[in-house]
């Protein structure tokens, strides 16, 4: 599965995208966020306020409880505030 990151989530993780193999217990966006947080300090920092980070499955916005079964690409994008 391809993961892509935007704005300060990407700045904190240090990469725009990556290909990953997910363990089978990761079933929803929320599960994925929890799993990513355990991948290292940079991920923990990026998803420190995971509840404000939004996700899109195959370019379609999805709520945290949404199943990721069959997804080809999941994007994470946070709110920004600069003007």
């Amino acid at each position, binding site marked *: 599965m391809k993961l892509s990151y935007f704005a300060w989530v990407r700045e904190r993780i240090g990469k725009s995208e990556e290909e990953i193999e997910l363990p089978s217990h990761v079933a929803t966006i929320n599960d994925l966020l929890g799993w990513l947080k355990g991948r290292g300090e940079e991920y923990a920092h990026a998803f420190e306020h995971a509840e*404000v980070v939004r996700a899109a499955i195959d370019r379609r916005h999805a709520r945290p409880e949404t199943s990721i079964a069959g997804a080809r690409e999941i994007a994470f994008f946070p709110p920004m*505030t600069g003007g």
Partner: protein
Amino acid sequence: MTLSASEIERYARHLVLREIGGPGQARLAAARVLVIGAGGLGSPLLQYLAAAGIGGIGLIDDDVVSLSNLQRQVIHGTGDIGKPKTNSVAAALERLNPHVRYEPHETRLTAKNARELVRGYDIVADGSDNFDTRYAVSDACFYEKKPLITAALGVFDGSLTTIRAHERRPDGSLNPTYRCLFPTPPPPGAVPACAEAGVLGALAGVIGSLMAIEVVREIVGFGEGLVGRLLMVDTRSMRFETVSYGWDEHNPLSGERARSVE
């Protein structure tokens, strides 16, 4: 509305477009647009709206120009430092297009005054720099039934979407609200602010100009706008991507609970 000879020449490159033409230019001249913030986004936005011949442009900003603004807030100049932004914008718009009626509101938009401020306009463009204002503007636009173009900047990133939450899609379903995408404001400090994180100057020019295109599109009506789509621009790697989003039954404005209260 009849255009004078000098207006016909001024707007010639829009008048020749089949998508704008005389009727579109008349709509622009009749439109009243409220811009929130004369910062990085507001700078190009205000200039392109004035140049396009928008009839009435309101601006809400309670800030003064500071030296560190000038790296990206290109509507202000070195000589404007210390002056209210509403003043330097007045001079810039007058220079660009004397046909524009400019209405400065040297005040801060809050949840209390937001509805009254947006009520007098046809369309709202939010280029503010904080979440309190963003949520207050988007809620006010929902209740006052005003289209909203809302954009934001990160360090290398921008985002842009159009909200027409008071209207329905052709299939009868409701258009999404801003809160369908970003349900609640992030806790203070969770999202880095430009002042600490920095921001690439010309990025503000890109996103503010895209806002101007969306405002003109919503007034004139051509092509496909950004209702139900969030455009994300990543200038670190030059990725332009859109994510679609829909009405969320949990949203507090037009969601199931809000509707059952009605």
